[in-house]
């Protein structure tokens, strides 16, 4: 083989490998992105049906109940504006507490109950998951804007 041909073989092989890898990666990437929505988004039907996503906010005070099997728990997640009920079967992370921040991953059911497959731990007591913080921040600024709008109308 001439040097030039050899170079073509190399470049060709490289392009094929790269294209295959890129196709593989992007395909897997596309189907495994998990989006984040705040409880307000969910209540206002902006979250997808039938696809897994994440919600975040605070666990509402006194909303935690445990079913008779000892493993299924129900609680409400709130961004201080809207609230959605969540059901989860399994063991909650150590720092799961009412009134504290939480992030859960799962799907929304037709009854409007969020079926969590995963409840995420935070690792420090004073630490708020950024997603939860963002959800509350959004709700607060929306409330502020509503208030401002109302004041203007009057």
């Amino acid at each position: 083989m001439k040097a030039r041909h050899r170079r073509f073989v190399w470049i060709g092989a490289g392009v094929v490998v790269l294209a295959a890898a890129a196709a593989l990666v992007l395909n897997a990437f596309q189907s495994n992105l998990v989006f984040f929505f705040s409880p307000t988004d969910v209540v206002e039907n902006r979250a997808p049906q039938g696809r897994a996503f994440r919600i975040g906010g605070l666990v509402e005070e006194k909303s935690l109940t445990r079913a008779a099997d000892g493993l299924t728990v129900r609680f409400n997640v709130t961004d201080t504006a809207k609230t959605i009920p969540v059901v989860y079967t399994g063991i909650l992370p150590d720092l799961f507490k009412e009134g504290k921040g939480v992030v859960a991953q799962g799907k929304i059911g037709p009854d409007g109950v969020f079926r969590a497959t995963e409840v995420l731990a935070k690792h420090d007591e004073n630490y708020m998951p950024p997603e939860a913080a963002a959800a509350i921040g959004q709700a607060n600024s929306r409330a502020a804007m509503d208030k401002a709008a109302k004041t203007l109308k009057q």
Partner: protein
Amino acid sequence: MIPELGHFALILALLLAALLGTLPILGAHRGIPAWMALARPLAGGQFLFIAFAFGCLVYSFVNNDFSVLNVATNSNSQLPLQYRVAASWGSHEGSMLLWVFMLGAWACAVALKSRHLPDEMVARVLGVMGLVALGFLLFLLLTSNPFDRMFPPAADGRDLNPLLQDPGMVFHPPLLYMGYVGFSVAFSFAIAALLGGRLDATWARWSRPWTTLAWSFLTCGIMLGSGWAYYELGWGGWWFWDPVENASFMPWLIGTALIHSLAVTEKRGTFKAWTVLLAICAFSLSLLGTFLVRSGVLTSVHAFATDPRRGVFILAFLALVIGGSLVLFALRAPKVGGGGRFEPVSRESMLLGNNVLLIAAAGSVLLGTLYPLFLDALNLGKISVGPPYFDTVFVPLMTPLVFLMGVGPLARWKEATLPDLWQRLRWALAVSVATALALPFATGKWSPGVSFGLLLAAWIVATTVVNIRERGRGVRGGVVAQLARQPSSYWGMIVAHLGIATFIVGVTMVKGYETERDVRMSVGDTVTVGSFTLRFDGTSEATGPNYRAARGAFDVSRGGEHYTTLFPEKRVYNAGGMPMTEAAISNRVTGDLYVSLGEPVDGGAWSVRVYDKPFVTWIWGGCLLMALGGVLALSDRRYRIAFRRAAGVAGGAAARG
């Protein structure tokens, strides 16, 4: 007084780093021997001052000096001594000081172990390391001073995060940083070579042992982190594709590519520019990892309080280092020139394949790690990329890599032929296919995933056996004598590759046969996982040095006979009132039995996690073998002989000059 001394020592180290980063490099450029000769003493001095500062910090932690902000927020008078020492690197500031300490130590090691190198090279290598140290010392002093005082002093500290109160904390960060920072040596050698325009097989031989050593440390560090997460976080996973894990995994992947490409540069003189580029990438990814972990952009165990100034500083430093070295590369690399030619089927081409695949893997991890950050930064919404993505991408990328791992070491340099390779490897192929098909029946139920994983592992083992047999065929002496003559770098490769096989077995068996059960258990209830039956015997109160715990007792039996008793704990730490799960694990070579307490539910019952994890320890055993392979390769006689020869040449040149 002690913290101020530490602070002062850091400032002195900064001044020395500034000198180290300028004078020797200029000296090498202008040919001023006196300036070049400054490199070694400056590197030594810099290390002494950093070490002194580090000592001061440890002293403050050990002696509970709660007037130091860092100590007050990360330690507590009840904390046991070993964790007070480890708390020194438990905070952002402390861990950055550890980073700089490691950097100083590597520079000092290079200064001591470089007698055989030409003075110009030493001056440039140490100079570049000085520049890196300068950046990090500035970062420490300007944004993250570990010695900041607080007034009035706290009565007691806020305590180290209970998750970190574990032997893992004592060993994981130092080893990981040794690896991370160790790539700065490979990086400095690469930059020095670009600056000096000297890039040849000798250069590869000099930087190779340093790279291998750093890689071995990094492997150990990642292994410890994984093992720690497995038993400490209480849900029995060994790898989560957490961004912080990815941050350490990317330099590892590129580092692995680098040690293979260095082999080609040393043996054949090819891949030179490529090797330099990899060295730059490996260290850049180490820096990127530091940025991701330390700037607070990530949600994870490792994230500390966010301070935007810090993120901006590291980002600017990152841009400077990566941008600067890539510009230098673009200017100088074309002059490096190609090496020997090779055919599409040859050991070179297979190692190139190894490199391409490893880089593709690192690239896909990078995409999965950074994409959510980009979207977030641009306010396009919050997303996360789950483990399924990484799993889907990794298996198809690693499969050809493992295949090449079997063929590559048997292929001839420059030109190999397929019929010859087929001839030598067909038995290995037959044996591994047969093993993969048959073995799952012996271990449990057959499934395509398990069979495939075992095929990969068996292929590595079978081709390794072929390799050793071929090497053992000698003219003189017996097989043993012939094998004893093989250099230790050969054995290093064999051991490391067998480590990969061990790792694959572990991953395959855990994925294929693990049982995980979350159950509610009252006293006297039993649950069966794998071949074990566990009976819950209730909980009792227990007290540790700085916590109180509910300790559960689980009687484990196998085939009706008592096997062992496990005591998982649910702890509440005195200082912060933070709860913590401490799993109880019974280790065997063939698998772990893993029990952790969830939470108490009504009437003395608990929710309990019970896992059976077959062959899970093989995962870490495999990593250990890989690191051991690296250390074996380091002990090769070749490096020492080469050193002496190089020293002779340098001496001769000096005599002539």
